[in-house]
């Protein structure tokens, strides 16, 4: 790992100021960033730790939404969202392994936008709002392809506001070596309709499966999607699964998610 300067501010305002330095980058749980730095895929000159910022920690209910601080760990979400949003608690509790969940954070996961990460599917399927130090970004505008988001240089995800669905479920087909999603599907049903977000499958990262949304908004039943097909073109192909295999998994997991959401 190349050397860097390290600061650990105690407020968002101080963190934003520190991120103004050349080649400065936020460090949250470090479960992605530190391995990347060891491999020299990242070499920031300044690391700005978000772990000491109290205002970025924890969960709170705001009307029909759950607001989660950007530096809240997966383990905390798994514990604290159980009553308000059980499908999200379950998603968080199935990320990686216990040690990863004790450090990794929701803000880090969303900012990183790994094409196989779990939280982007939840954010997109719930039509969440990503709250930053300077603005609010709709999930539909936030995810912009592989490891790419709407975030500007030095912009911090301070919180995420997720509208709580009436029914929801996340189905993750685990890639056993990495423990990320080979394919993951989040289905969320609201009074106004159903949203379906897919991770792990597309080469462009998380996406909404709009045909399934239309079919499920019409009739919320697992067999409502059995007749639909997902194009294999554009899907990830690697030694763990061909594009056609992933495309099929999208349909199968959507059906399972609907069945499990009840």
């Amino acid at each position, binding site marked *: 790992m190349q050397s860097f300067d390290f600061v650990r501010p105690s407020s968002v305002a101080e963190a934003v100021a520190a991120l103004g330095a050349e080649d400065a980058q936020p460090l949250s749980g470090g479960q992605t960033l530190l391995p990347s730095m*060891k491999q020299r895929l990242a070499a920031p000159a300044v690391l700005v730790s978000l772990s000491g910022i109290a205002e970025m920690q924890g969960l709170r209910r705001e009307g029909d939404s759950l607001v989660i601080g950007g530096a809240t760990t997966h383990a905390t979400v798994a514990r604290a969202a159980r009553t308000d949003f059980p499908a999200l608690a379950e998603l968080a509790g199935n990320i990686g392994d*216990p040690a990863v969940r004790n450090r990794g954070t929701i803000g880090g996961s969303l900012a990183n936008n790994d094409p196989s990460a779990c939280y982007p599917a939840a954010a997109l399927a719930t039509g969440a709002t990503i709250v930053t130090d300077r603005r609010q970004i709709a999930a539909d505008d936030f995810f912009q392809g592989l490891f790419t988001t709407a975030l500007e240089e030095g912009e911090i995800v301070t919180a995420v506001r997720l509208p709580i669905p009436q029914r929801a479920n996340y189905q993750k087909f685990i890639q056993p070596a990495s423990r990320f999603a080979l394919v993951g599907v989040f289905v969320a049903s609201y009074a106004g309709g159903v949203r379906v977000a897919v991770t792990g499958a597309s080469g462009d990262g998380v996406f909404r499966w709009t045909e399934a949304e239309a079919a499920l908004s019409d009739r919320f039943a697992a067999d409502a999607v059995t007749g639909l097909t997902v194009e294999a073109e554009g899907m990830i192909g690697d030694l763990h699964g061909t594009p056609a295999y992933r495309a099929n998994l999208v349909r199968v997991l959507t059906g399972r998610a609907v069945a499990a959401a009840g």
Partner: protein
Amino acid sequence: MTKVTLTVNGKAVSREVEQRTLLVQLLRDDPASGGLGLTGTHVGCDTSQCGACTVHVDGMAVKSCTMLAVEAEGAAVTTIEGMANADGSLSPLQQAFQDHHGLQCGFCTPGMVMTAAALLAENPTPSESAVRYYLEGNICRCTGYHGIVKAIMAASGQDMPAMAAE
């Protein structure tokens, strides 16, 4: 360099570290080069995959190869060296690893014990599947895991014959 002050196995320690020093380096490095010389914590992969480096930070299992030492400022860290009884004898969990063939070469064992201790603190009588699930991030190249799972079940005071034989 930055000064970091923390508690390790109940003792307050303070060291000057480079910003990029990993927690596992601070723990393991020779005292002559600024470390604590606690080599019980192992580095297996150094890529956040194997769990050999698992320690407790404020009671939570953490991969010490994937945390900066400076991030442990003010924290209470427990390593495998802090797990034995006060008289130096093995704790019941450690003894169970010995009794139930929970180790062969022993390389993964410090991480396994730390992860198991975190599990039992959260859930004192886990099911067999809960044990296997919790060990997801700890890799063992020798035992085939069965002895490890048995050891943890035994340490939790649960019925061993109920578990399938190896």
